[in-house]
């Protein structure tokens, strides 16, 4: 009888069940249909990607002083992309018509916002609530005075001159801030037991959710001036912002209400049993939990808001897309580079939206208290 006292050494897995080839077999060539689709997809990618790379990078003209450098001698377009169209007018894409010598002001406001926000990302920062409150309540006024001017010897830069990415960011940040504030209040109002508060909230939410944003903007810019007393004009940007805030508040309210409904009744009762007032129980017990639950929904709304800001183009405000489409697109010196402009705008929007969604995922993980399962 043969008894071995040694354990046999592990053999490597058979070559067809590991490694790259195995992965290909299982994931790409698993059966005739999958093989067919893999080949088809590979063919499509081969047809699309190399020309796209060639267009966007290899044959591209990155810098040029005039559009003629993107063209052949007989006036035909060169094959590659003409990024010079973007690089040449980059300042205008960023700031719109904001005067060149005053551009340090929006820059300063932007840097301040970033510096103030960074400490919020670290867990150990003391007095986070105060800092947050400062950013939400005081900072908007500082930013407004800085960017618009008119006080402390700063030259007034009319809102009509604001534009480009700067305007896109201003509209979306102001929109997000106020929509979150009003939306939360509306959500609480809708769940209130007071009949007037409740019905007002319901009417408000259902009204603003029921109309398209484009209508709201049109009303604010085309109809509203006709209702105002003759000769009274009302800043166009302010009108658009109010419209956007009202519209988005309704959406945020419904998202927050979803969170409020997801909190078990026991939490409300426990807070009441502790003797907390309505506001205290809301702000200390219910809302922190509810808000955490609705982060994905909120971020979804904010991304939609960020992209919806491009609609201000139809009322003659020059956000990022409008600058590229209307201002750059109508300059005789650079006609015909429409595609490059749109690709660039898409890239900028994608970058912002993608970082916003990554940030929200990180926030979810950070705030996760294990109720997920």
């Amino acid at each position: 009888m043969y008894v071995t006292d040694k354990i046999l050494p592990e053999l490597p897995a058979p070559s067809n069940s590991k490694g790259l080839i195995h992965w290909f077999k299982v994931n790409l060539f698993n059966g005739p249909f999958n093989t067919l689709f893999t080949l088809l997809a590979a063919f499509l990618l081969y047809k699309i990607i190399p020309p796209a790379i060639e267009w966007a990078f290899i044959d591209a003209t990155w810098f040029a002083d005039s559009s003629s450098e993107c063209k052949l001698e007989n006036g035909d377009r060169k094959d590659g992309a003409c990024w010079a169209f973007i690089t040449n007018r980059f300042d205008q894409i960023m700031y719109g018509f904001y005067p060149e010598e005053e551009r340090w002001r929006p820059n300063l406001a932007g840097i301040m916002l970033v510096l103030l926000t960074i400490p919020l990302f670290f867990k150990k920062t003391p007095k986070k609530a105060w800092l947050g409150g400062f950013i939400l309540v005081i900072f908007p006024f500082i930013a407004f005075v800085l960017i618009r001017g008119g006080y402390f010897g700063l030259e007034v830069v009319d809102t009509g001159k604001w534009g480009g990415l700067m305007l896109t960011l201003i509209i979306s940040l102001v929109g997000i801030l106020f929509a979150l504030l009003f939306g939360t209040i509306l959500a609480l109002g809708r769940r209130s037991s007071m009949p007037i508060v409740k019905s007002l909230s319901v009417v408000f939410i259902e009204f603003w959710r029921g109309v398209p944003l484009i209508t709201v903007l049109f009303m604010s810019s085309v109809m509203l001036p006709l209702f105002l007393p003759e000769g009274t004009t009302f800043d166009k940007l302010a009108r658009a912002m109010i419209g956007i805030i009202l519209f988005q508040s309704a959406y945020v309210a419904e998202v927050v209400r979803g969170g409020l409904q997801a909190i078990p009744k026991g939490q409300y009762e426990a807070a009441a049993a502790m003797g907390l007032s309505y506001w205290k129980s809301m702000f200390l017990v219910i809302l922190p939990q509810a808000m955490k639950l609705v982060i994905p929904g909120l971020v979804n709304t904010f991304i939609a808001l960020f992209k919806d800001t491009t609609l201000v183009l139809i009322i003659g405000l020059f956000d990022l897309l409008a600058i590229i489409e209307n201002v750059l697109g109508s300059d005789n010196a650079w006609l015909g580079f429409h595609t490059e402009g749109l690709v660039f705008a898409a890239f900028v929007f994608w970058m912002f939206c993608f970082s916003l969604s990554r940030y929200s995922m990180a926030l979810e993980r950070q705030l996760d208290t294990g109720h997920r399962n």
Partner: protein
Amino acid sequence: MKKSFLLGLATAAIFSTTAQAGTLEDVKKAGVLKCGVSTGLGGFSAADDKGNWKGLDVDVCRAVAAAVLGDASKVKYNPLTAKERFTALQSGEIDMLSRNTTWTLTRDGSLGLNFAGVNYYDGQGFMVTKALGVDSALKLDGAAVCIQAGTTTELNLADYFKANNMKYKAITFDTSDQTIKGFESGRCDMLTSDQSQLYSLRIKLAKPDTAIVLPEVISKEPLGPVVRQGDDQWFNIVRWSLNAMINAEELGLTSKNIKEKKDSKDPAIGRMLGGQGEKLGLDDNWSANIIEQVGNYSESFERNVGSGSPLKIGRGLNALWSKGGIMYAPPIR
């Protein structure tokens, strides 16, 4: 203190009030002319890389500012979309509108507006591929046509082809950029739109040389500056600022020779450059200021849309009446 500061901030940002009736006084008081322009139309009103507005329509704003304020640069441009333009004028947000707006009876009669003149005679035209080898729209029987949907262009095209007993196949698109892409990819033999646009669409082609604009014009689209109804003095100022540019071309006055011609013995030039201002409520230098700072109509045309620009639009209908066109201004005397 803080409260009033914030309140002031809010009011300053949101409301500004102007009186309605005396536009001239308002403009003089403000020291700046609020002029409504297009959000972007190459050659007519477009911003350059420094953010300065330029174009044929912009030059009308500048001419009025030169006449009223003595400085063509004192204009606040208010870029407007097609839908808001009339509201902005009616509500007093702007003092005048110079935004490639077609003069029609409906607009003149029912919107509380007045058209002060015509600064560009536009009309619908055709662009065809050179490969087609035609030189007249009348040879286009059976052609496939790219059109922007929902515009009067569609209607004019149908009328024209019907009147000439020809057939066509319409391929409609949503925006002008899509239309030109359709034309470029060969989906149609010709593209129809207002002539002023055809020229800028042509430059947008990857190979502009493969297309030509046909000479035929099949509709009337007189474009001009617009003011509010009920302020006749202001209406006159805008009308005669434009007329001064056209008359200057006729009299051979340009931004370059205006200084020498000021003492000219020619009675017509003498009448134009002196003594007429007060009838409009302006000072006597009004016309000289326009010509010096903006130039005559021909200078403005060539610089913005004509030979001095990439568009290279010929004068055509917009040539002076004495040179085969219909650009005609009543005399200044």
